[in-house]
């Protein structure tokens, strides 16, 4: 109703008494520059939830404790405004869980700076993904740590799709866990992986290893297939033109879309 809206509105403009200490001054005291402080102050006012502002102080503290400097802290808040609303206890628990997984100071700090959203993911979810990677995909603990550090977004992926992606690369492409970790496989979507792989396979440049792990040609390594831009991929690995690849991408997208209904996941044979 109109009255409710009005109340809500005035609340946003005048922070409740509990957080009056969050003045511009207090942000500047934390080390933010004047303009950074102003921006944080403003975005704080824009956060919808009325009680969110009280969580900001512990969150900022936690980020500073992780070793982030004021400008990366501000970037984190911009990338992930949800950070304004996390409760202190939750945040501490999530950070300590990530430490338990093996993310030590330097890498934890870099990961949070790069992907602050990781702090919004419940510990239980992260634990499940870790278990999954260890039990279903047989990654070692160290490899799991590396995966979470290099591809933190993996914790939000659907586990069925994650399993499909892993099996695709493991069985169809014949790539072992160590190589997957090394080339940061989980940064790429299944479609990206499968598009480049199938293109190479149909051109005769990639073969699925037989039961003894043997192929009649030497497959290009995963790194040279995935970790390069399209032009480099086409010139050096696929050895063809962008025109051909463009048509292929359109055909492949249609093939997969139409196959999705019947086709289960790739069966290991």
């Amino acid at each position, binding site marked *: 109703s109109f009255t409710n809206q009005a109340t809500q509105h005035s609340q946003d403009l005048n922070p409740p008494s509990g957080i009056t200490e969050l003045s511009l001054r207090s942000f500047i005291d934390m080390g933010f520059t004047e303009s950074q402080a102003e921006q944080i102050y403003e975005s704080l006012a824009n956060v919808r939830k009325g009680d969110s502002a009280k969580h900001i102080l512990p969150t900022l503290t936690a980020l500073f404790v992780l070793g982030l400097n004021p400008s990366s802290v501000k970037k984190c808040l911009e990338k992930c405004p949800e950070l304004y609303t996390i409760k202190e206890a939750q945040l501490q628990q999530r950070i300590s869980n990530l430490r338990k997984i093996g993310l030590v100071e330097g890498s934890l700090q870099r990961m949070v700076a790069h992907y602050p959203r990781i702090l919004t993911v419940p510990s239980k979810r992260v634990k499940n993904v870790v278990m999954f990677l260890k039990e279903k995909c047989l990654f070692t603990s160290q490899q799991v740590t590396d995966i979470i550090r290099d591809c933190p977004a993996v914790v939000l992926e659907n586990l069925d799709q994650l399993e499909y992606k892993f099996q695709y690369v493991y069985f169809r492409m014949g790539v072992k866990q160590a190589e997957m970790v090394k080339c940061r496989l989980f940064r790429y979507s299944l479609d990206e992986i499968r598009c480049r792989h199938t293109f190479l396979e149909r051109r005769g440049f990639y073969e699925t290893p*037989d039961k003894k792990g043997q192929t009649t040609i030497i497959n290009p390594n995963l790194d040279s297939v995935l970790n390069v831009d399209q032009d480099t991929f086409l010139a050096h690995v696929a050895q*063809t033109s962008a025109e051909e690849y*463009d*048509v*292929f991408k359109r*055909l492949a997208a*249609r*093939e997969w879309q139409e196959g999705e209904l019947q086709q289960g996941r790739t069966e290991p044979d």
Partner: protein
Amino acid sequence: EKWAATHPKLPPTRLAVHHFDATYSTQLGQLWPSVRLAMLSERKYGALLNNFSHNVALTELKAQGCVDFISEREKDVPSCLEEKSEEPSDVSMKSSDADGEQLSLSPNIKCLVFPRGDVTRFKPARPDKNGLLGYYLMDAASLLPCLALDVQEGHSVLDLCGAPGGKTLALLQTQAIRFLCINDSSVSRTLRLRKVLHSYVPKHFLTNENLRITSFDGTKWGEIESNTFDRVLVDVPCTTDRHSLMEDDNNIFSKNRTGERRRLPQLQLELLLAGIQAACPGGEILYSTCTLSQNQNLSVVEQAIYQAREKDGIHLQVVDLKPLMRMFGNTFHFAPDLHLGEMVIPHLVANFGPIYMCKLKRLT
């Protein structure tokens, strides 16, 4: 084959890939990876317009972005060809290529395709009020043998291996043929051919006076009816490369068909020789396949030319198809430097073929 013996469960499509990798990579060199990719991906079709149908599919298909690759060539398009009405005409157009060589194309064969790189599919053709369908979907490159056959007004034509009838249908569109004889040794496939003809051609064109459908072993044709036809199309059974790569059913690379596959070049040779005998002196024979295999293409033609002369005393001249190749270079990718005949090789941006064709003229 040794490799296959150690992997008994390998499906025929896999056997076909291995076979092609071994033979075509040397034959096509640098071109092979793109040809391989194209054959393993969805092919493109052309819509052969049916002049007998009242459904004017032309405008509809053009509205979807199709072009008639035969009349709407980028260069060297005689204006009269473009302005031609829908009404079938019985005059062939002479169009000359850059070298001044003459090549006549029937103006009545129209085939619509989506442009290079466009992967839109055709909808199934619809019947008109008489039940005749507006177009026939086929590999657009399959029309090249029909065009190259160069059927003229009043010709008698033999289609030695005619089922299921795509090329026959294209030949009938010219409405120039006095008598057409369609043969195919497979009875079930000739039944399919009859069905196709009835869905596309009015009954009064399919009388005994204009048309005969038979199911003989084509290799015996020379004994049945020699020195007869102005034009003979010899579209032989082959390894059907595309089909062999994509379908495990009815695959010529399956273990139990190895013998049949090995005998193909001999069968093809006999069919071509029979076709040569069936043509009249001065008549022309067109040999075609849908394989890239040298053994089934050039070698067969070479052998046939040799044996026709040695055994039957028939002298043949190879007719140059370069003009045709130049005319349609924008629509199809052709294999470079073939010393005998021409070949459309598949490529993803123009995913037609493979089609090999070679034209012979009987001198004696």
